[in-house]
């Protein structure tokens, strides 16, 4: 009897003493989720996401190496036939930039003021870096989709943000870019020291000065995007960058990846780590590099091998293929992995940097700027030569290789066939081999080289996509705004063929 009361008593006591209302406030706080974070952690994570997204070769995220006909698929050609739908590519791209990049940059900005790891004197620079990366990401979203949520975006209390006009966003981004260029304090470093993944370092020269050059390169780049629709503004912008741009490949805005998964170059994951052979070079690209005629129009037939060919591609693995052979496959079809060239060994290195803006690109942009009548110094030929040389050197070629190549009559700026769009467009195409997103944008602006449509396109596609369609989920999650945005894109609406506001030709 006594025992029973004791047990009942204990039960009763436990009922009253350890009630939920008596549990501490932190009982419902996840002990395995960080309550605070460092600004540099957010910035580095955003940098990693941004660079991986624009340089990826994943068929779930970035099919642009197919669109630019650098590569063709081996066994599984669906994405090379412009199927964006089955693998939800637009959604993955959209989320990578909005959710995984820009949101972290916003978190970084919020963290900087109270982050004791960032010295007070450097806080402005740290904020400027976050802002600059954010501008890059926004510009990329606009260049990929067109109208996107901007003014109402990233507000978790508004689950249905309206889409803003692409040209208006772009103009605002330029305003923000000018502001951030004025914000960098070159007397001090950027404050996140060796933790920064793009320009790590602890001196102003190694960090702030580099970021400022990158900011100006972006300004030149955005100027050229606008060049066909607002040449006046483009001219002003481009000319404002003179003397402030990267001057060598050391100034390239790139991110050197780590040796260890999951922070290797994404190409390593797809080409090596996966143990798959999903890609071979496309004949559209390999043939011109070999110096022979390909199936793209406006491409020089040099009769000489491009010094980058053996870096860009490997020789086929088949024992029957003679040494020194390079061969490309057909984009849109299945292709033989053994008799065709796979992407080159340099692309397979874990630590291969992922590039946002390369020096070669800067010089080619300057060449184009000259041709467009912008006063940026130098001649079109001098910048063209510098750009091509830089590209060849980036891939391990020598100055002599570049000189030989540039002396080919079909390559030399003054004798190469076609107008500046054709000549510079071809060099953009070759130089931006490992910057597929950037290459796609330059190609959409200049329309050179004139690439053929992939074999048997799916979903009724009749042109190489000029944009990504919006994620399918936008229709149900943000339907009214989606419909308005789709209508605002013009008569063709939310379609891969719809040209964006700056894509005039």
């Amino acid at each position, binding site marked *: *009897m006594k025992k*029973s009361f004791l*047990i*009942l008593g204990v039960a009763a006591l*436990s*009922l009253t003493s350890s009630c*939920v*209302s008596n549990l501490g*406030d932190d*009982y*419902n706080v*996840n002990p*395995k*989720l*960080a*309550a605070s*974070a*460092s600004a540099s*952690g*957010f910035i*580095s*994570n955003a940098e*990693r996401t941004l660079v991986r997204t624009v340089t990826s070769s994943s068929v779930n995220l970035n099919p642009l190496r197919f669109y630019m006909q650098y590569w063709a698929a*081996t*066994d599984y*050609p669906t994405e090379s036939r412009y199927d964006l*739908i*089955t693998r*939800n590519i637009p959604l993955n791209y959209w*989320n990578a930039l909005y*959710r*995984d990049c820009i949101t*972290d940059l916003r*978190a970084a900005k919020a963290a900087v003021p109270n982050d004791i790891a960032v010295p007070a004197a450097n806080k402005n620079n740290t904020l400027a870096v976050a802002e600059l990366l954010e501008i890059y990401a926004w510009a990329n979203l606009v260049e990929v989709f067109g109208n*996107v949520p901007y003014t109402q*975006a*990233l*507000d*978790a209390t*508004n*689950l249905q943000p309206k889409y803003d006009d692409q040209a208006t966003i772009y103009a605002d981004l330029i305003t923000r870019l000018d502001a951030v260029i004025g914000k960098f304090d070159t007397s001090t470093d950027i404050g996140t020291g*060796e933790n920064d*993944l793009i320009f790590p370092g602890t001196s102003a020269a190694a960090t702030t000065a580099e970021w400022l050059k990158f900011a100006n390169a972006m300004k030149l780049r955005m100027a050229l995007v606008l060049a066909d629709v607002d040449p006046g503004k483009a001219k002003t912008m481009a000319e404002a960058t003179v003397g402030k741009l990267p001057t060598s490949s050391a100034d390239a805005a790139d991110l050197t990846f780590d040796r*260890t998964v999951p922070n290797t170059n994404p190409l390593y994951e797809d080409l090596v780590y996966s*143990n*798959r*052979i999903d890609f071979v070079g496309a004949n559209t690209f390999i043939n011109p590099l070999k110096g022979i005629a390909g199936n793209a129009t406006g491409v020089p037939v040099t009769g000489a091998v491009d010094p980058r060919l053996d870096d860009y591609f490997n020789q086929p*693995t088949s*024992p029957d293929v003679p040494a020194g052979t390079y061969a490309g496959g057909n984009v849109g*079809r*299945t292709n*033989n*992995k053994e008799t065709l060239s796979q992407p080159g060994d340099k692309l397979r290195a874990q630590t291969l940097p992922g590039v946002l803006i390369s020096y070669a690109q800067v010089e080619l942009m300057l060449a184009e700027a000259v041709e467009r009548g912008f006063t940026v110094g130098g001649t079109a030929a001098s910048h063209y030569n510098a750009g091509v040389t830089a590209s060849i050197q980036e891939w391990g070629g020598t100055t002599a290789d570049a000189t030989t190549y540039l002396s080919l009559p079909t390559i030399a700026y003054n004798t190469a066939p076609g107008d500046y769009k054709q000549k510079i467009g071809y060099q953009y195409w070759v130089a931006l081999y490992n910057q597929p997103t950037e290459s796609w944008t330059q190609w959409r602006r200049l329309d050179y080289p004139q690439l053929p449509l992939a074999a048997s396109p799916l979903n*009724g596609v009749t042109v190489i996509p000029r944009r990504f*369609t919006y994620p399918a989920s936008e229709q*149900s*999650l943000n*339907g*009214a705004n989606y419909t308005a945005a789709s209508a605002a894109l013009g008569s063709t609406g939310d*379609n891969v063929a719809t040209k964006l506001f700056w894509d005039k030709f």
Partner: protein
Amino acid sequence: MRQFTPLVILLTTGLSQVAMAQSRSISGRVTDQKSGEGLPGVTVLVKGTTLGTGTGNDGSFTLNVPASATTLTFSFVGYTTVEQPIGTSPTINVSLTSDTKQLNEVVVTAQNVERTRNSLAYSATVVEGQQVTAARNPNAINGLSGKVAGVQIRQSNTLGGSTNILIRGTKSITGNNQPLFVVDGVPISNANTNSTGQQTGGGGYDYGNAASDINPDDIATMTVLKGAAATALYGERAGNGVILITTKKGRQGLGITINGGITAGRIDKSTFIKYQKEYGAGYGPYFNQADINGDGIKDDYIQLSADASVGPRFDPNLQVYQWNAFQPGSNHFGQKSAWVAADNDPTTFFKTALTLNNSVTIDGGNEKGTFKLGYNSVIDKGILPNSQVNKNVINFAGSLNITPRLTASASVNFSAVTGKGRYGTGYSGTYSENQMTNFRQWWQTNVDMKELEQAYQYEGLNATWNLNGLNTDRGAYWNNPYWSRAKSFETDTRYRTFGNVALTYKATDWFNILGRVTLDSNDDLQEERLAYGSVNVSGYNRYNRTYREANFDLIGNFKARIAENVSFTGLLGANLRRQSTRSIYAATNGGLAIPDFYALSNSISPLIPPTEADIQQAVDGVFANATFGYRDMVFLDLTARRDQSSTLPKGNNSYFYPSAALGFVFSELTKETAPWLSYGKVRGNYAEVGSSASAYNIYSGFDKPTPFGNTALFSVPSTQNNANLKPERTKSAEIGLEAAFLNSRIGFEANVYQSNTIDQIINITTSGAIGYTGRFVNAGTVRNRGVELSGYVSPIRNENFTWTINANWTKNQNRVTELLNGVDNIVLASYQGGVTTNATVGRPINSIRGQNFVYRDGERVVRTNGYYQKSPTSNEEIANPNPNWTGGVSNTLSYKGISLYFLVDVRQGGTIFSLDRAYGLDTGLPVETAGLNDLGNPSRDPIVRNADGTYAANSGGVIFAGVQADGTRNTVRADNSGEDSGATAYGTTANPAAAFVYDASFVKLRELSLTYSLPKALASKIGGLRGIDFSIVGRNLWIIHKNLPDADPEDAASSGNYGQGYSTGAYPAVRTLGANIRLSF
């Protein structure tokens, strides 16, 4: 057999035992007709009076009866009442036959309150333990399939895989929809630990769900409480219904029961792919060429890496180098071989499954107490090589009457489940392989399985059929399946203990109090391996999880007669629940440094930081129940409960919910006027159940991704938590009618119900443009309404022969009636193949969206190239996995000692998307991808046109049914050669996702048993035996009807919300046949 219960004693002792003057004493013994055992607690009454007694422990009774008495009635719950005339003999022995349809049986209800069926004002279906184990299913939950109206059970075909249970439909959009399991008052976990990726068909292992840790032979009854009125006392977790399991209790005397059984299973070939035998390896109808034998002439060799059969047409006269020419273990190593379809296709990969299911139960007791000891051993070998799941369960329960008023009881159930080589599920996982994906979606029809096995056995290496090329020994996409099964296996153990200790103190006749502590404790270890030498990066991972749940209960029970005709029972209780889940997952990174060494330290690269979880939850509840009865005819049942949950924000974390139920046993009024109506009751109820969030949905924090070199990374989580969450609520109402006729030879129960689950706490999908792709909100309403019918009839019932038919039918209609403002659809999960499951306003939950056909006047539109036009987006509803109705019919025929039982389980309607078909048709595997076209030519021949553009007589290609864009009938031939696309015209390349949606209906012969019980007289001659039963049992013997080609429409990757209506890497159904012997002493 139903055992006596304290409540019955209580009732029987309440009977007056007035001895009358001119009386005589009659004594006797009441026994169970089947077992011959004495039945204690049987009510013996002089008919027409209240004079009576109850039988003692051995079933004997002594009663003084008046001289006027003519008849005695013997009644006991669960048995048919017997009336016996009083003759001149002073002894009357009676044997009672069990009657599971006895309507005054005792039903265990919420909080283990035992009540007569009469007094229930809600639906509660009792399934006897012997019905659950009729076909000796080692998983007790699967044994419920087809037996209970309103309960939808979906079994998976994997070894030890999980079972999905839905009671009255899906209520929660993103939360748990599985019912609560309560064993003898102990809530036990039925969680599965499968990853989201596994559940959405992405690959992994199905580790089963935890309710299968119960020994089926220990189950006395399973009571299914469906509606909230029945379950509200259990609190927030009971909103999805409750399955109450009452285990067998020790009884007076000593009893031993032994079951020994063995079953064997073979695949049901109607649920496996049937291959075309006309074309072999390739993505396109050509061979590769290289000089392989060094004679300077190029040789034909197959597209080695192609995991497809869209290659050249077979030709026995053609000799080509195939995969086997490059694998040293093959008979054809270094040689060409004839270009023909394989003699041994992948059906030869499957082995005969074997299950040994043995159990022993020992029980006994006396006036002071009872005990029970059980042991169950299941050894389950699957249809795949190297697969085995063992289960060992020990359970003990005992009770001791410390004093006449105080009873102490305890029960403990210990189980150890060990698995080795469970089947990989879904598409492909980092650490798991599913050969079904390989065989159904990506295969070369020229590969002979026997040769593949030889090639593996030759050196024990990964001698794959799928080389990446001539100059490599590495596989392209697939390993040798024999090697995979032998080398890349998982192992797992789950040690589990659940049980309780309780004290009941009977303070007075009308009040007792129960104090109880219950514990459910799980320790899981899962280790997965991908062997060195695999196509994918090798690796090893381990997942350790501990789960603890403790409940502290204090419950007072009242029982009183308020007025002459008004009875009252009630309870007042409090419950504290504490749950803790701690887990850690770690995996090697970058591959294994050396083969066959499975430790985290064998990682090539530094480990990615292990994923830790530490989840603590607490809920406090107080509850009360009052039941008023009037003349045993009208019953009013009221409950109320208030919960306070730690997972909601302070100030918003307590919630109250009531229920009310009213029942009217109208047959009490018609007893005299309509004797043919054995029983009749109408009832209605309304109830609400509140429920809280899962842990950690309130406060924000940051993710900490793997560091980048020496740089720490931080990230904002992709789901945003919400500090303003409030409890969600399910409101439900039910009306029911129960009736039985002709001395209960025929009867039925009908229920109509509706539930609305409102203010749901859901992780709503959001546009990534807000910075998150999910946010916890209170939003959304899901309505379920439905009809349940169940009935029974005994067309023949006599001394020697009985035939009983039980049937049930359920129709549940599910609708998402509301989502967040401005949102008409949210994606619940995305799947390979471009399909998603969704919650759409106005549609049933889990509807499947994907690319559709384009229709014109009801006909599919065909493009100018002969292929179907696809809708511009993948956002069209193409399938709905919810069935129209489900049902089951069982027949039991008994003739003397022989009894035949079989159950037919039916599901009508609902559709399923098959990724197996989408890819398999693409890669040219099923029969219909080959064969002849309308012109009589092989459909895979190229399209040939005459000079005038018309098709030549020898043209290949197929004409798909439909219309052209202008509405005219399609006459355009679609190319089926794979020449351009590497795929046939039937697969996912050429067709929208909607082309791979099939009706998921089925009719299955689910269970069958044929039992012979040795006559008792005979049995008793053998070593003190009380009985011997021999059974032949069969499960899933015959899929009588289905519309999904080549697969079992019921098979699913996992239990839970995900994966419904999605089939990938499906395992074939297994037909199981075996024998069991049951000995009782």
